[in-house]
């Protein structure tokens, strides 16, 4: 589904992604963890080309990512992305947030888009808020709307960049529950998170990154009980407290 080969990325002189090799199979849930600044967000964002890369290759279903223009937009519409800060459209209602892209990009009729949107809003449990504006919702509700907005494009993969890091503790679970359901439904997912219990539960593989490199790719059982590197062990220790 996603194949990343020998990917390198620089910000100026700063080498942020170093020889990254990673593939995510259809229906697989890959969780990326690692200390702050290790390049997790950057890696996630290169997959739908919100960040350009300097060398290497990214294949989506065997096809290289287009450079830009309409082809890139078309690929992006198939890759859902959920951000730490929700990023809902402030001037649109919850319902309009979910219908905008299906109408504009997929050329669905308003009626069809609306029906699908209501179904998705119900699925993430915010259908009763459909006519409100983002500012009127709690963080947890907004993030669930953001997930519904991505799902409305019927994506083949979903990328999550710390979807619960901006949330108050009591709202984290409502978002993780929605993501767990998605995983159970067979969605292909690439998730950056600091929620270790969630990672243990939901992931098929755990990727540990440090200083722009992937140090370890392992099953969650192995990774959390006997991590293969000292860096990973130190990291797991450090977040326990």
């Amino acid at each position, binding site marked *: 589904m996603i194949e990343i080969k020998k990917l390198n990325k620089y910000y100026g002189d700063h080498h942020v992604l170093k020889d990254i090799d990673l593939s995510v199979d259809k229906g697989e849930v890959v969780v990326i963890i690692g200390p702050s600044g290790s390049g997790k967000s950057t890696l996630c964002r290169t997959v*739908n080309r*919100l960040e350009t890369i300097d060398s290497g290759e990214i294949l989506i279903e065997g096809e290289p990512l287009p450079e830009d223009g*309409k082809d890139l*937009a*078309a*690929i*992006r*519409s*198939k*890759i*859902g*992305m959920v*951000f730490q*800060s*929700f*990023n*809902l*459209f*402030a*001037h649109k209602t919850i319902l309009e947030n979910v219908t*905008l*892209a299906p109408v*504009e*990009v997929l050329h669905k009729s308003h009626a069809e888009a609306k029906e699908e949107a209501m179904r998705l809003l119900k699925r993430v449990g915010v259908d009763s808020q459909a006519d409100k*504006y983002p*500012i*009127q919702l709690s963080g947890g509700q907004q993030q669930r709307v*953001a997930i519904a*907005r*991505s799902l409305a*494009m019927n994506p083949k993969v979903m990328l999550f960049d710390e979807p619960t890091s901006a949330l108050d503790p009591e709202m984290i679970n409502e978002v993780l529950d929605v993501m767990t359901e998605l995983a159970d439904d067979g969605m292909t997912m690439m998730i950056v998170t600091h929620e270790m219990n969630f990672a243990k539960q939901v992931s098929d593989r755990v990727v540990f990154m440090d200083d722009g490199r992937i140090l370890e790719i392992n099953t969650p059982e192995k990774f959390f009980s006997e991590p293969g590197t000292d860096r990973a062990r130190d990291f797991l220790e450090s977040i326990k407290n």
Partner: protein
Amino acid sequence: MSVYELLSEYGSRYVLALLTTWELTFFAAIISFVIGIVVTVMRVSPIKPLRAVSELYVQIFRNIPGASLLILLVYALPYLDVVLSYFACVLIAASLIPSAFCSEYLMAGINTIDPGQIEAARSLGMTFSQIIRKVVIPQALRFSVLPLTNLLVAIMLTTALASQVPLNPTDLTGIVSHINTHAVGGITAFMISAFLYCMTALVIGFAGNLIDRKVRLMR
């Protein structure tokens, strides 16, 4: 002359002058808002030459005095075999300068939009033009209602440039000169025009506030 005498003699001319000022203001507003939006889209476009040209445009028209621009239009254009009516010259001068300010206000509005929303739109597969039309411009306009309202008043005052050219019927400023060359209207003739400008500005301001309250986004 008293207000009463002035109005009984020149009342209908004042009405025509007011209508001329409104007409100039109306068309100048539409033209400058349209140009302002186009220039703003160019300024945020990914195409470098477009950005450069639009920045230059704004710098020029933000800084050129209205009277100079009008003189150029009236006296210089004919050398290029472009002869415009006086009305058109005033309209263009009163449109181009505010269009630069319009773009500045829209840019300020755009800068208040969280870049994360743009990234979200890109990640949903929306193209540059879809993002501009559906996400950026609607929000920029909402944030710019009050500045644009003030701009509309400024446009009306800029149309007083019409008094510098022979127009018939003339505008609210032109009529003061007209009266004072044919009779002794004095300061009173001017006060009547000023009153009409003020009332129009009040109405514009009131409407702007209403619209702002209706479309303003809570943060």
